[in-house]
């Protein structure tokens, strides 16, 4: 890990989320509710990345995420890397995992699904990770990765 890079906008304590596809940056901010956070949040986007083409990075001071929370971004940023920073040092690295159940993030692609007309959270179970396939708990329709749309 390059200390030099982190110093660009070094944080004393907090979380750095790297390897976010640039197009998913604002969705990640939304899912992690960083727009409502009182912590110092900095981000960069359209950075060069060998793996992703264009990536984004988010640095959040004084905030650490539960696995359950951070796994919610796995659908749109499956290769995201989390660096946990304490006293300017990376003390832990984490990856994200697609949860078995997805609640309230994804929109069902079936226009005849009850989730579109009632005030209710959507729910999906993951049928397969690679390639990604999820099933609506209500209408039971299967959706593949390119059919998945965020709420």
């Amino acid at each position, binding site marked *: 890990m390059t200390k030099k890079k982190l110093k660009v906008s070094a944080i004393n304590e907090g979380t750095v989320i790297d390897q976010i596809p640039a197009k998913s940056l604002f969705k990640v901010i939304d899912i992690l509710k960083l727009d409502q956070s009182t912590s110092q949040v900095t981000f960069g986007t359209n950075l060069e990345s060998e793996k992703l083409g264009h990536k984004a990075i988010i640095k959040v001071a004084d905030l650490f995420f539960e696995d359950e929370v951070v796994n919610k971004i796995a659908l749109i940023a499956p290769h995201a890397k989390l660096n946990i920073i304490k006293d300017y040092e990376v003390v832990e690295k984490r990856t994200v995992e697609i949860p078995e159940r997805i609640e309230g993030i994804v929109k069902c692609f*079936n226009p*005849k*699904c*009850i*989730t579109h*007309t*009632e*005030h*209710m959270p959507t729910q999906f179970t993951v049928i397969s990770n690679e390639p990604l396939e999820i099933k*609506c*708990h*209500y*209408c*039971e*329709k*299967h959706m593949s990765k390119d059919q998945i749309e965020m709420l």
Partner: protein
Amino acid sequence: MTKHLISITDYSKEDYMRIMELAADFEANPNQNLLDGKVVASMFFEPSTRTRLSFETAISRLGGRIIGFTDSSSSSVTKGETLHDTIKMVSGYADMIVMRHPLEGSARYASEVSDVPVINAGDGANQHPTQTLLDLYSIYKTQGTLDNQNIFMVGDLKYGRTVHSLLMAMSQFENPIFNFIAPKELEMPKEYKQYLDSKGIKYYEHSEFTDIISEADIVYMTRVQRERFSDPIEYEKVKNVYILRNSMLENTKENMRILHPLPRVNEIHVDVDPNPKAYYFDQALNGMYTREAIIAHTLGLK
């Protein structure tokens, strides 16, 4: 835990067998006062006379009282009440809810809101488990078993929810074989074929409807509907290909029976009707006994 029947996969093989047993019992003795003093809500958010009459007759023969409505124009739904609120209210009044709704997933959601058991009488194109159970009972009754059945499914295998649910249910039994006969545009979806593969169950696909049915124990016919085709020329090409005629039954097995969820359009020629292998009208009657069985099983009355 409240026992609901929303999808055919909510039931285990043991549940299926229990329903077979109970349905036979109700067929022998249809009038049993098991629902005495009980109220059943029959909520049809879209009309389906066939299914509703079958359910309401079953409830009546069990001595229960019925409240409800026959389509949403006569209910509070037209006033903009949510399904949540309608179900909350009715589950306070009734001991059980039978519901039909045009939106998919509505019955599952209702079961999560309701304090009393919910039986799904059809949620859009998704599930219609009581149809599947009456199909199973028809097979069980005519073949004496649900094991070792060679089932031919014919027509619209892509959108036909009845064939999908029947496939899932029959896959729980010993050594089934499936034969799918459908035009390319309406073939069995890959998720069902993958499911059969994962269970090591044999299936064969055909696009021509010929004398291959000589192997069949059950021929399950479905409607091929014009609106399913993106290209009207394709429909014109296939519409007369998947029609069962009496002449095709000559070399079929003695025990073979023809099933159809009804109503039919033209996919079974009327010259089949007098043939003893034509079972679709008896199948419909089996629905009432099966629904009596489902109600008794759901409420633990027998």
